[in-house]
């Protein structure tokens, strides 16, 4: 299990929506336990994030997708493990899954109703879906980054957002090179877990993670 204590950072994530802030709160646990009121609270707290993410990915159908996200999360709530990460980050993963799923279903429907559509632009559809999937991945990663411990988050940001080399980060922070490298690697592994969770565990029952 990741070091939970180091993940509790009330002051974290100043620049993104605070999915990590309520980490390990009773809301997360009550949600997993199936408390009805927790669903409403989770909706009030995370609904804007879920809807905003869905809006960017599926546009006008965002409300439909957001509804599916909360229903799927509620049905799969027993599989939500508050020890592994906050509810908000989990919901973001499900939003990713449901949005891509929605886009796939829609393009499948278009192909069914319009054969001509296939001939003209069939090749573009998977491309569109993969673009959306990549955008969704980046959203998930941006949110997941906020749940990393401060020091590790800053080092990962310097490395990938600012494009600094490990040596440059070492000079800037005064930390040994090995420590920098360790933070970067542990950070990436933690982010990978967030992403793969969104890909496989997000869905309540279809168990379909084949769109990657």
């Amino acid at each position, binding site marked *: *299990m*990741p*070091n939970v204590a180091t993940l509790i950072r009330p002051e974290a994530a100043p*620049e*993104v*929506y605070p999915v990590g802030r309520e980490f390990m709160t009773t809301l997360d646990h009550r949600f997993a336990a199936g408390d*009805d009121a927790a*669903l*409403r609270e989770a*909706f009030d707290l995370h*609904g*804007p*994030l879920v*809807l*905003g*993410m869905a*809006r*960017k990915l599926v546009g006008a159908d965002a*409300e439909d997708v*957001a*509804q*599916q996200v*909360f*229903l799927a999360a*509620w*049905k799969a709530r027993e599989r939500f493990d508050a020890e*592994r990460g906050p509810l908000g980050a989990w919901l*973001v993963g499900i939003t990713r899954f449901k949005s891509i*799923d*929605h886009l796939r*279903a829609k393009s499948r429907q278009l192909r069914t109703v319009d054969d001509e559509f296939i001939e003209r632009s069939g090749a573009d559809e998977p491309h569109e879906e993969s673009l959306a999937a*990549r*955008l969704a*991945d*980046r*959203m998930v*990663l*941006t*949110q997941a*980054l906020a749940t990393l411990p401060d020091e590790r988050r800053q080092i*990962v940001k310097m490395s*990938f*957002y600012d*494009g600094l080399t490990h040596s440059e980060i070492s000079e800037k922070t005064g930390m040994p090179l*090995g*420590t920098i*490298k*360790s933070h970067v*690697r*542990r950070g*990436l*592994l933690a*982010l*990978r*877990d967030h*992403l793969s969770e969104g890909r496989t565990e997000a869905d309540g*029952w*279809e*168990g*379909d993670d084949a769109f990657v």
Partner: protein
Amino acid sequence: MRLSDSSSWSELSDEQLLALSDDEFDATVPDIADLLSLGPVDIVPEEPPASLWAAIALEVGLDAILSAVPTPDAEPLYRPLGEVQPMERRAPGPAAIKASSRWGGRTAAITLVAACLLLVLVPLGLSRRGGNTEILAAANLEVLDPSATSGHVDLVVKDSTESLELDYAATAPADEYLELWLLAVDDAGEIETLSLGRAEGSGSYEIPADVDRSRFNIVDISIEANDGDESHSGRSILRGQLVS
């Protein structure tokens, strides 16, 4: 060395983690460095409309009831008449009371949906199919899950036998199947479920003659696991109310 899950990598010492070559390590986190290098994508929060919560509460309310309520006689169709019994009345314990209060909102919503359907449906009482097949009611099935894309059902009577003419597009997950249900809700908010057997594609599904069909006015298709549990799974994918 395997880095297949969080439990394995978080236990690695720094020495072990750093001993991996860049190539070895990169293989365990494919794409992530590339995706990160593209920069952050912040999500702009959007306040959900009240209707979104209403829609979620509606589904959760009914599904919670369906999951909780046992259906003793939910055998598939084609059994000798007289065996389909209404659900046993249980003393209204706390769960039942809770279900009832939830159902209040549900009923209001169904009434609203019914009113909307009435506005868009053609006068079905006048429609006829073939010589003596009459459409008594119809329902557009609401898609509740992406494994379904559309659904419509007509309640028809032919030679005094009622059946559902089902037209839908949905697929069951591997190793699971779809089941067709009629649901009845009484004033106390209790739900009775009546299985019409597996939904095996669009077509005609007969309603047992001994069933008081007029009480069962909700058509529902659910995903069911092959687990021997004959009660409704609560995993509805299509649902609609019959409107005459």
